[in-house]
Structures are given as structure tokens and as C-alpha cells.
């Protein structure tokens, strides 16, 4: 069978032009009428590991959720691979651990299988092959032995790895993770770093909200410094400078911060 001729729309895009996987333009997001993000513009690199860094209340989680379409935007646009951001399987997501009900009747395997639901499809039952695939993803984070544990009976690091495995099951090219390294043990930290590097090898983009400034340079290729406004974004070597960090963390918390000189 011949594939249908490519539509002219696809052809019309400049061939070979690097469309950023995530492009944010003039994004403003309000929480209770107060700006959580103000006029943020950012082009994600085509692939690699990106840290989002900034003080508490800087809007880091809000940015992830807005990209996912979970939070309404007051102003601005977000495009994913050049198309307007909707919801879909193109982005894998790991929420903050505190947002999960750990008492829920689900095993590690159940949670990872949820990452396959989109591909299994509405109303279709989960098959044995789906569980086997989920087990492989658990194995990738060193959790195969604990597949049948109720999630509340796992340690914090193990819980985090289950959710990383669920993101792997989503089989996306873009991964958004909200503080995956917060409060996890050294083993988990090492396994997650390896998993992220593996994704980078496959050409994926991994965006991580990160709190530990000390490990930014050793893990991440790119960094984005955020404090409601974008402070700086770019390769870690040139962007993660003491001056930029001081600007991001030292900024006053008033609703109208001092205007900043553009940083590049």
C-alpha cells in the first residue's frame, strides 16, 4: 500500500528548520489574579537534559503544568513541535511526589501500566503484553522485584522511580519531571540520572525542575533560571553563572520586580 501523498501543509514548513520541541512565547499565568509567570519566552533545545532552577514560588511547577495544558494561560502561546500545545501523548509527565495519594489501591506495576493507557485506548482492556511491557520499564529503573508492592509500601526513592517508569511507558520524546530528585536516596538519584542520559542518547528532551544547585552542572546540559520572569536560559557552562544564580535567587518578592537588563 502506498502512503497518501504528504499534505502541502507539511511541505510548506521550511525543510530542515529546527522547530524547538517546546516554544514558549510571552507566557503569563495568573494564580488568584497574581502573576505566577510573567512574559516568559523560551525555546527548548532540540534534545538533552534541561534543569529549571529558581527559588520557591518562582513558577517552575506552573511552567510545566502550563506546557501540559493543566493550568490556563492568561497571555502568550506555547507550541509543541511547532503545533499549538494541546493535551496528548507527546509529553510524558512526572508530578511532584506530594501530589499523589499513596494509600491508593494500586501496585507499582498498576501505576506504570497507566503510562500505556493512551496506546491501549479508551474502553479496551489491559492485556498481558501490556503488563509485560510495564515490567520492562520497571526493570529499567531497578524496580522489577517490587512490581507487585502497593505503592504506599515503597520508600520515597522507590516511589519516585515508579513514576519515572510510568513516564518511560508513555514512550514520548519530551519528558517533564517536577522535582524528581527531591528527598530521594543516592541509588535512586544515580539510576534516574542514568535513565535521563539514556533518553538523551535516544534524542529525547528531558526537562527537570531541580532544587539542588550543587548537582546542576554535573547532570544537566542546559539550564533555565526562573523567578516568575525568565532570568536566563542556555547551555549550563555559559548560563549557570554565579551572577545569574544570584539574580534568580536574590530578586525581591514584590509583585513588580525591578526591571532587569536582558540576559543572553
Amino acid at each position, binding site marked *: 500500500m502506498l502512503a497518501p501523498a504528504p499534505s502541502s501543509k507539511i511541505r510548506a514548513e521550511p525543510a530542515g528548520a529546527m522547530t524547538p520541541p517546546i516554544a514558549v512565547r510571552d507566557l503569563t499565568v495568573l494564580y488568584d489574579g497574581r502573576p505566577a509567570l510573567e512574559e516568559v519566552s523560551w525555546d527548548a533545545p532540540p534534545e538533552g537534559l534541561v534543569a529549571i532552577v529558581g527559588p520557591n514560588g518562582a513558577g517552575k511547577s506552573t511552567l510545566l503544568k502550563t506546557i501540559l495544558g493543566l493550568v490556563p494561560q492568561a497571555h502568550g502561546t506555547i507550541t509543541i513541535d511547532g503545533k499549538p500545545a494541546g493535551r496528548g501523548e507527546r509529553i510524558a509527565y512526572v508530578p511532584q511526589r506530594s501530589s499523589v495519594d499513596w494509600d491508593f489501591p494500586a501496585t507499582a506495576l*498498576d501505576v506504570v501500566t497507566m503510562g500505556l493507557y493512551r496506546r491501549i485506548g479508551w474502553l479496551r482492556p489491559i492485556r498481558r503484553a501490556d503488563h509485560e511491557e510495564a515490567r520492562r520499564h520497571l526493570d529499567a529503573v531497578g524496580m522489577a522485584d517490587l512490581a507487585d508492592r502497593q505503592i504506599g509500601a515503597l520508600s520515597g526513592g522507590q516511589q519516585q522511580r515508579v513514576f519515572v517508569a510510568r513516564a518511560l511507558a508513555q514512550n514520548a520524546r519530551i519528558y517533564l519531571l517536577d522535582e524528581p530528585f527531591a528527598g530521594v536516596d543516592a541509588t535512586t538519584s544515580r539510576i534516574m540520572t542514568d535513565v535521563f542520559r539514556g533518553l538523551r542518547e535516544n534524542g529525547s528532551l528531558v526537562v527537570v525542575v531541580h532544587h539542588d544547585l550543587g548537582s546542576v552542572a554535573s547532570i544537566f546540559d542546559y539550564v533555565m533560571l526562573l523567578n516568575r520572569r525568565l532570568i536566563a536560559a542556555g547551555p549550563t557552562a555559559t548560563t549557570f553563572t554565579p551572577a545569574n544564580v544570584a539574580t534568580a535567587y536574590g530578586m525581591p518578592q514584590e509583585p513588580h520586580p525591578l526591571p532587569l537588563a536582558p540576559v543572553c
Partner: protein
Amino acid sequence: MTNWLSAAFWTDLAAVLLLRDAGYNTMVVMLGAAALGGAAGAVGVFAMLRRRALVADAVAHATLPGVALGFLCAVALGLPGRSLPFLLGGATLAALAAALGILAIRNRTRLPEDTAIASVLASSFALGVVLLSIIQTLRTGGQAGLDAYLLGATAGMLRHEAITLGVFSLVIAGMIALLFKELVLVAFDSEFARAHGFAVRTLDLIILGLVLAVVVIGLRIVGLVLIVALLVIPPAAARFWTHHASVIVFIAALLGAVSAYTGAAVSAVHPQTPTGAVIVLVAFALLLISVAFGSARGLLPRAIGRARLRAQGSAP
């Protein structure tokens, strides 16, 4: 009066429970009740996991003015006041209005959700009580039967009514089987479900719709004051036996069915008993047993597990 302490009562009850001495009509009513109990238990799992139990209670109480208005409409049209389609139709509309009212209060006023729920529950129930007192003054027949909708009754229930309730319950069970994976997903992690491309609002509406259906169908047997118990208690009890959502649904359905079946049987032997109250007490007894002995998180199995650990720890 039946003497609860007499041996005759218990032998009669045992005979009815085992369908040995039950008339055909009684049997149909008991099986209809069991089907309802099973559907309520299964739906209740999702109401519990998605934390909608209080909404279910408010919606149930809000059916009272609907039942009363249905009665008045039927009378105004010259029909017998207690015709099932009018009463249940009124109940459904009132329940929907209550659900929308709760949503509107929560979204528009910044009042916390429990405040919105409590105000809607109490005020709609109050409206129902006032309408009932008006109905009592009418010179039409059939008012007495309305009590059944408050506390539930299976005495005097017709065979085709029981069959209708049973069929509705089976439809509900079928919907849960079909949507099981999606309902668990939205109950566990609604943000992930949305980011993953599932229509969370639609799924929430389906959960609310299933709750509403159980409430309306269960009014006649369990009564609107107590129906929430059949949605809440069997799932809570089932949680003590397993860590698997699918197994919880089955156990909750089983416990709900056993409770409703037993309640209907007691009512068959002792027709003055409010069926709903007996059903709830049976369900609660099953909850206590589950809390004590449940294999997944019951108190006794956990104590034994701890004792065993300690014994291993102190062993040389």
C-alpha cells in the same frame, strides 16, 4: 409484632435467606435488592477513590423534594400519586439540580466544597420535608407509601419494580466493567490523566452519573437518608482485604449485595422493619469484620505480622 429473640424469627429468616421458604415475589425482590447492593458497592469504590462520598449524600437527600414534586405532578394529572416514573423522574431532576448547585456554589463563591455540600444537602432536604407536609394535607390516597422513599421498604414492592431495579443495576455493572481502567486512572491521578490525553471532565461526569443512578434506583429499597451508606461502607470494607482496585470492586459489590439481600430478607420475615436501616446495619457489621480480619490491612493480620517480625528480631 415479631419477637426478635424468638427462635421462630431466626428459623424463618434462615429459610427466606436460603430462598427455601420465600414466595416467588419475595425472591424476586431479594434478588433485585442484591443487584442494587452490588451496583452500589461497585460504584461506591469510585465515589470513594475520587472522594465524592459527601456529594453522593447531598444528592441523595436532594431527591426528597423531587419525589414530592413528582407525586404532586402525578396527582395534578389525575394519576395515582405514587407512580414510579413520576417519583423517580422527579428524584433524578432534583438530584441533578443539587449536583449543579454544589458545583455553582463552589466555583462562583469561593466557599469551601464541604460548606457548599452541607448547605445544599440541608436546604433541599428541608424543602422536601415542607412539600411532604403539604402532601399529607391533600385528600388523595397513597401518601403513606412515600415513607418508603425516606428509609426504604421492600414490603409491598411489585415484581416488575424489582426486575426494573435489577436490570438497571446490571447496566451499571456493565458500564463499570467497560470503563474500569479509565475510572481508576482519573481517581488515582487526574492531572496525569489530563496530561496523558484522557477527558477527565467527562470521566468525572460519568462517575457522578453512576452515583446518581444508584441513588435514584436505590431510593425505593434503601431510602434516601441511608443510600449513601451503601455507596461508602462496602468499598471501605473491601479496602481492608486487598491492594488491587479491580479486586476491591468485586469485594465491594459482593458485600453490598449480601447486605441488601439480607436486609430484604429480614423485611420479608418482619414487614414492619425499615429495609434500608437493616441493610446499613448488615453492611456496617461486615465493615467491622473487615477492619478486624481484613487480609490486606486488617488490625489482627497486622498485629500478627508485627509479632512475627518481633519474634524473628529477638531470635538468637
